[in-house]
């Protein structure tokens, strides 16, 4: 088949598919016009398409099972002293067989696990033996004992374990009462705690690894095997970190999934999942049909439903409300250090609940008290930390450290304080001084990196010192600000900024719940929200913003007279309303702006900050109203904003923050007059140009002012286009382009610049089109498509970028149509249609955008008629 015919088939197929089903054949006949081969091809493809399930949709795994070899060849074979009787199960780690000790000494049935993996070197074999010995020394009634192990004649590894006849945990637990379930779980905890005391972490605790015998005794299988086999499979003894082999994501802790060190806390997490499932019949996270990324994100970032929130009529969740669900939630915390400090502590809480005493686990929202405990029990805490160290890096090192610890404590403490002082001085004295220096980016980057290193080590060492923890949180926030606070000179490392803010957030949430700490936490959420907003991740931004508002609400309810707090609250609400606006949800945003306008007079009305805030609010409200097709109201609100801005500009000519607010009002004002009163639109745009030029004159390194200038120039260009002053438009737009390219060059990761440049190209396209330069227009629109597409692809939640993309695609399509490039036009328009239809389904189309849909449909109809 030649590619040309292939292309024809594809195109016809797509067109036919777009038709209502009953019209398809008719349509095909008309389209193929006697080309029988084409007709046959497409009709058979349409038939194949109509099958409910497609073969290649199932992914390859459904069929790849065909390739599995048989296991029958193991039967009767001899492994060391053991002879295989039959297979009893298979798991991620290998096949398990029932085998019999057959050397005549004594009769013993064992479970024989065979790992088809030979040793590649002697070191590895030694390691295997050593580990095996440790595991074999575990001797507990609820742990299946490792009896023996070795290498078969054909080079396979095998392990002989106590053979357990029993039911799996979940099946057994199903018919038990709540009390009986908890009793059973306590026995499991006992076994895990015993192993932990012997420095063995299970790493792969899950219900299928726990059997219950006829005597109702739970037996834990495969203790420590995950690690043993893991190392083995990696062919590398030195890689002790993790790289886990036994991938059972449903039970794996967030840190395991991240590839971080696995400690006793990971087992506590897995136990939490097991208990959750025992009690509710469900797993904390629904991972069905999720991609790997989604699985990772779900487990490391989202909170599971609390047990009492599970809606299942069979389940009497009211019994689980309170203590039990708090206990489970504590085991399931994302941060290992916030879970129970040991399995014993976990079990102890359950026992307390059973004997109606107060438990230590509290909901996340209430003050977390473990830090207090740590302070009171420094020695115990240190010992616990050592156990963890031992599990990670080997007992020898831990012992060495324990011995040295006493002697070096004084010296260590001094070093600790030095580092603390140094980081503080780096961040709070040096960084602000170089913040606005031209070309200081690299220096600031190094500074941020060093400070982060110090801080991370401090944070790890000082869990119990609350004052220091609070200091650390501020330091992380300062770093976040340097990395990516959109309102200050920043490094545009938004992902890094989010990480830093999140670290601060995690610390702040551990601090005592004082009003001051809550206020700081709220501010942290706002900063997080702002960076996410810059990244165009509006969904997450909204969540953080809501979290901040909730805290402010609580604080204001306690002390309603606090005007500072009220101002912060309004600002936060405004921020939220802006997120809604950016999401095209003007109807949600407008009432919030209106509410802010109504509350503002309660604040100190003479203060410049309040006035600037008032002006900003009016302009945001005006803008949202205008987008919502309420133009007369929009103009009224906007004029209020302009009035305040003008007087502020006169009173504070040298205050860069005030000037920034003034500039913003002018730009918003200009934008609402576009297409209706273009003269006014142009005047405001020119005032915006002037304001930003003044700012640059007083501080040439100010990137923000440059960005403002570029935006103002492109706005002047837009107004000029509408006023038919085309050459003026062109020169302004070209100036703006130069500045944007310079900014993108400096900060290639900053999507805002790319978005603005994309918008600029659409304006270019408009001008060229009006000058009847179709090819010029086409290339401008195509450039904007490229930029919008890139943004839309990195953020599926960004509906605005997709709207812009559709708009540009539509323009591209219309021009292609005019140029006679029908196939291209069809492709562009269909893509535009697809995007807009999708947006419509998501309710993400403003009234303003609805004409877009009609325009595209009309063009497509025209094309179909002509084609």
């Amino acid at each position, binding site marked *: 088949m*030649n*590619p040309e015919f*292939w292309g024809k088939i*594809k195109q016809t*197929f*797509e067109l036919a*598919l777009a038709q209502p089903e009953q019209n398809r054949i008719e349509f095909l006949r008309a389209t193929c016009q006697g080309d029988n081969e084409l007709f046959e091809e497409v009709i058979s*493809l*349409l*038939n*194949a*398409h109509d*099958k409910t399930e*497609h*073969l*290649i*949709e*199932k*992914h*390859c*795994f*459904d*069929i*790849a*099972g*065909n*390739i*599995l*070899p*048989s*296991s*029958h060849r193991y039967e009767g074979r001899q492994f060391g002293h053991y002879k295989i009787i039959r297979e009893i*199960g*298979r*798991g*991620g*780690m*290998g*096949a398990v067989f029932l085998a019999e000790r057959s050397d005549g000494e004594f009769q013993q049935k064992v479970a024989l696990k065979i*790992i*088809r*993996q030979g040793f590649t070197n002697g070191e590895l074999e030694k390691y295997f033996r050593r580990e095996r010995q440790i595991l074999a020394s575990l001797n507990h009634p609820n742990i299946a004992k490792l009896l023996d192990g070795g290498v078969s004649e054909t080079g396979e590894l095998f392990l002989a374990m106590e053979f357990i006849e029993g039911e799996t945990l979940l099946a057994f637990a199903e018919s038990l009462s709540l009390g009986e379930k908890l009793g059973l779980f306590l026995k499991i905890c006992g076994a895990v705690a015993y192993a932990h005391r012997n420095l063995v972490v299970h790493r792969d605790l899950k219900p299928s690894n726990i059997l219950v015998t006829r005597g109702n005794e739970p037996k834990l299988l495969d203790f420590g095997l995950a690690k043993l086999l893991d190392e083995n*499979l990696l062919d590398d003894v030195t890689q002790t970190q993790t*790289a*886990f082999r036994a*991938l059972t994501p449903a039970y794996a802790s967030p840190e395991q*999934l*991240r*590839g971080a060190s696995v400690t006793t806390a990971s087992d506590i997490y897995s136990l939490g999942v097991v208990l959750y499932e025992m009690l509710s019949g469900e797993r904390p996270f629904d991972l069905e049909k999720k*991609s*790997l*990324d989604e699985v*990772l994100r779900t487990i490391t970032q989202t909170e599971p439903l609390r047990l009492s929130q599970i809606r299942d009529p069979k389940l009497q969740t009211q019994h689980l409300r309170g203590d039990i669900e708090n206990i489970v939630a504590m085991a399931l915390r994302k941060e290992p250090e916030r879970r129970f400090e040991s399995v014993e502590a976990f079990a102890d809480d359950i026992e307390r609940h059973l004997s109606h005493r107060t438990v230590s686990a509290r909901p996340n929202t209430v003050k977390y008290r473990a830090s207090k405990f740590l302070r009171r029990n420094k020695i115990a805490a240190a010992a616990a930390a050592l156990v963890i160290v031992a599990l990670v890096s080997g007992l020898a090192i831990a012992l060495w450290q324990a011995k040295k610890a006493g002697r070096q404590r004084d010296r260590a403490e001094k070093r600790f304080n030095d580092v603390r002082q140094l980081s503080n001085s780096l961040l709070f004295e040096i960084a602000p001084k170089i913040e606005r220096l031209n070309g200081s980016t690299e220096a600031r980057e190094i500074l941020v990196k060093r400070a982060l290193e110090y801080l991370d080590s401090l944070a790890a060492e000082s869990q119990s010192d609350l004052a220091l923890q609070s200091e650390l949180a501020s330091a992380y926030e300062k770093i976040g600000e340097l990395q990516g606070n959109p309102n200050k000179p920043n490094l545009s490392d938004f992902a890094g900024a989010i990480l830093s803010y999140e670290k601060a957030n995690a610390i702040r949430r551990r601090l005592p719940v004082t009003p001051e700490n809550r206020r700081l936490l709220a501010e942290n959420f706002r900063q997080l929200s702002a960076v996410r907003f810059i990244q165009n991740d509006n969904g997450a931004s909204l969540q953080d913003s809501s979290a901040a508002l909730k805290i402010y609400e609580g604080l204001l309810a306690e002390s309603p007279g606090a005007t500072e707090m009220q101002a912060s609250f309004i600002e936060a609400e405004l921020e939220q309303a802006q997120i809604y606006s950016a999401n095209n949800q003007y109807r949600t945003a407008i009432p919030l702006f209106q509410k802010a306008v109504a509350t503002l007079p309660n604040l100190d009305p003479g203060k410049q900050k309040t006035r600037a805030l008032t002006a900003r609010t009016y302009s945001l409200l005006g803008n949202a109203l205008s987008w919502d097709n309420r133009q007369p109201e929009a103009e009224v609100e906007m004029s209020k904003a302009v009035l305040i801005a003008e007087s502020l500009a006169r009173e504070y000519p040298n205050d860069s923050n005030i000037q920034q607010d003034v500039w913003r009002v002018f730009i918003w004002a200009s934008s609402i007059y576009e297409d209706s009163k273009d003269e006014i639109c142009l005047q405001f745009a020119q005032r915006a140009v002037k304001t930003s030029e003044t700012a640059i004159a007083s501080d040439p390194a100010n990137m923000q002012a440059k960005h403002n200038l570029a935006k103002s120039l492109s706005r002047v260009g837009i107004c000029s286009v509408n006023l038919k002053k085309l050459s003026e438009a062109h020169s302004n737009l070209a100036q703006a382009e130069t500045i944007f390219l310079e900014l993108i060059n400096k900060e290639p990761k900053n999507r805002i610049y790319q978005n603005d440049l994309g918008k600029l190209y659409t304006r270019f396209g408009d001008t060229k089109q009006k000058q009847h330069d179709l090819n010029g227009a086409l290339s401008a629109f195509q450039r904007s498509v490229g930029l919008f*597409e890139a943004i839309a*692809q*990195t953020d*599926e939640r960004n509906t605005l970028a997709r709207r812009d993309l559709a708009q540009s695609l539509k323009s591209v399509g219309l021009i292609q149509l005019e140029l006679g490039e029908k196939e291209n036009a069809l492709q562009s328009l269909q*893509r535009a249609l*697809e*995007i807009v239809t999708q947006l419509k389904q998501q309710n993400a189309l403003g009234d303003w955008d609805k004409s877009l849909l009609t325009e595209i449909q009309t063009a497509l109809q025209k094309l179909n008629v002509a084609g």
Partner: protein
Amino acid sequence: MNLTKPKDVTVLLNAVGAGDESAPEELLAFVYDDLRRLARAHFANEKPDHTLQPTALVHEAYIRLVSWENVSWQNRAHFFAVAANVMRNILIDHARKKNAQKRSGGQRILLEEAVGFQTGQELDLLALDEALQTLEKVDGRQAKIVELRFFGGLSIEETACVLKISETTVRREWTFAKAWFQRELTRD
């Protein structure tokens, strides 16, 4: 970060993302080794009712090899693209071997006993590969999409990212490809 350190997939991936020309090959070699090893273990051990899942395998290799917090989403997509290709080779190899066994007759009955599951309509991997090769000749991009989606388990979004085309295009091509393969593979 130290580029000379061998076997660091995270570093390699970032190098691929940054346009380092030797990186893709090194990455391929590395991913190939690991996937082979994993696949071998799975072919030997996985239980029949829990059949071999290449996509799960690829993900497993990914989790084992890459410290995902340090790799950008785009670079992760590179990993999956490489892995998809490797997975295709591994599976086709195995299918060939199995076919050879079938022809020689020896293990046939045992094999069918061991594979105790039904997929309804059975898909012949070798036929699929053949069809995919045909497709490669007339429509390279669509063939690549199929390889990424089918063998690599990539989502529409990820596929679009790897091939640097829009999701809409991927979706449209995928719709066509599904119909085409359905027809080609069920033809008598």
